[in-house]
């Protein structure tokens, strides 16, 4: 019987209800109305104009934010694989990650366009000297990017208004979690840092990412 009476150290160390009360009321009402339950879900699809109408400016902002992070990851892995510093099982495990990040860029770009938005421009990226010269530096940076990406997606979960976009973002976020776990394993880190994924705000993520974007600081 796994039941325990203690309150678990989850949700930022706060009991669920306390955590819940921190949610902005306006956001709560908006999300509750749009995420909805079965009926709402079944009514929305990409072919349904109502689904498109749900895409708010803020959803487009979030999509472009995600796109910028995926651009960074895709560029990073492309350079890392071109540098040919991995071999064997490590190469086998990292190769598909590059494919996934490129697929995420394509999917997000297409989605933003379909929703009538303008995809963010591809930034010029810069990395610390030596990043692509040896395995340790490359995989260590990769691990940092993956953990950053996971917390970035999870930080937007309650901000996304469209059910379809929420599903898509979650489907991508799960893959980033897989990447993060594998890179932690490859670099001697902890693949399971917490029972629930952590979150970062957009400001926190962009502050970390801008070190890698030329001209952003």
């Amino acid at each position, binding site marked *: 019987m796994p039941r325990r009476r203690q309150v678990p150290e989850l949700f930022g160390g706060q*009991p669920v209800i306390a955590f819940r009360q921190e949610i902005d009321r306006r*956001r709560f009402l908006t999300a*509750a109305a749009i995420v909805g339950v079965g009926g709402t879900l079944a009514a929305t699809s*990409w072919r349904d104009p109502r689904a498109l109408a749900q895409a708010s400016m803020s959803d487009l902002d979030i999509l472009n934010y995600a796109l910028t992070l995926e651009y960074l990851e895709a560029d990073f892995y492309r350079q890392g694989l071109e540098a040919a510093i991995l071999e064997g099982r490590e190469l086998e495990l990292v190769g598909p990650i590059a494919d996934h990040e490129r697929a995420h860029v394509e*999917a997000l770009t297409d989605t933003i366009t379909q929703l009538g938005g303008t995809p963010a421009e591809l930034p010029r990226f810069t990395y610390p000297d030596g990043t692509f010269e040896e395995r340790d530096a490359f995989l260590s940076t990769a691990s940092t990017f993956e953990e950053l990406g996971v917390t970035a997606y999870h930080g937007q979960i309650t901000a996304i208004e469209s059910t379809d976009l929420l*599903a898509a973002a979650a489907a*991508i976020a*799960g893959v980033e*979690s897989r990447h993060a776990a594998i890179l932690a394993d490859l670099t001697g880190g902890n693949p399971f840092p917490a*029972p629930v994924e952590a979150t970062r705000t957009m400001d926190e993520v962009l502050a970390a990412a801008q070190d890698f974007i030329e001209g952003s600081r």
Partner: protein
Amino acid sequence: MGLTRRTLVKGAALSIPAATALNLLGTRFAGAQASDFANDVEVLQYALTLEHLEAEFYRQANAAGLLSGKEADYLQRIGADEEAHVVAIWTTVEQLGAVPVPPPGVDFGQAFASRESLLDSAFTFENVGVSAYLGAAGFISDPAILQAAAGIFGVEARHAAILGSISGRQAEGGVYMGATETPLPRADVLAAVQPFLTGAGGAADEAAVTS
């Protein structure tokens, strides 16, 4: 029926063509059964049943003495995560004024006959769990619960990837399941775990989660 339901974890067959990932997802998500869950408590009870099953699986797995070194360490941590999920969801259900579903009766068959069968079963549970959470996410209306469910979903994906890796599976279709995770509707998930639910407790729980 095999110990693991490979038909539900098809590996590479589940990967999604890159450029159309989001479009496909939207379509398939809309194709979920609209009646799968009526409210947040139903989603939570469903998740709780799966977490009970996983937690009990790892309790038995970690007591079987089949693993050593890093593998044993990883499965201990995964088991601890599943227990944390049980406690968190149980507490949340209570706070919402409902009675949490109790742990089902389980029988993992020959899962603990060998290291390989243990890891194989764990791999299947984790990947079904990932898809179960994704399939249920759209039915959650409370943003705090959605945040927590998404956070648990991500950790299940970490478990799935590591289990794929330590059991030596191919990267794509073993460690990763494509560029996006794939949701499963409730009926498919329940069909996948059905072989492991037994006895009066199992039947009662099954009734609870399928009612």
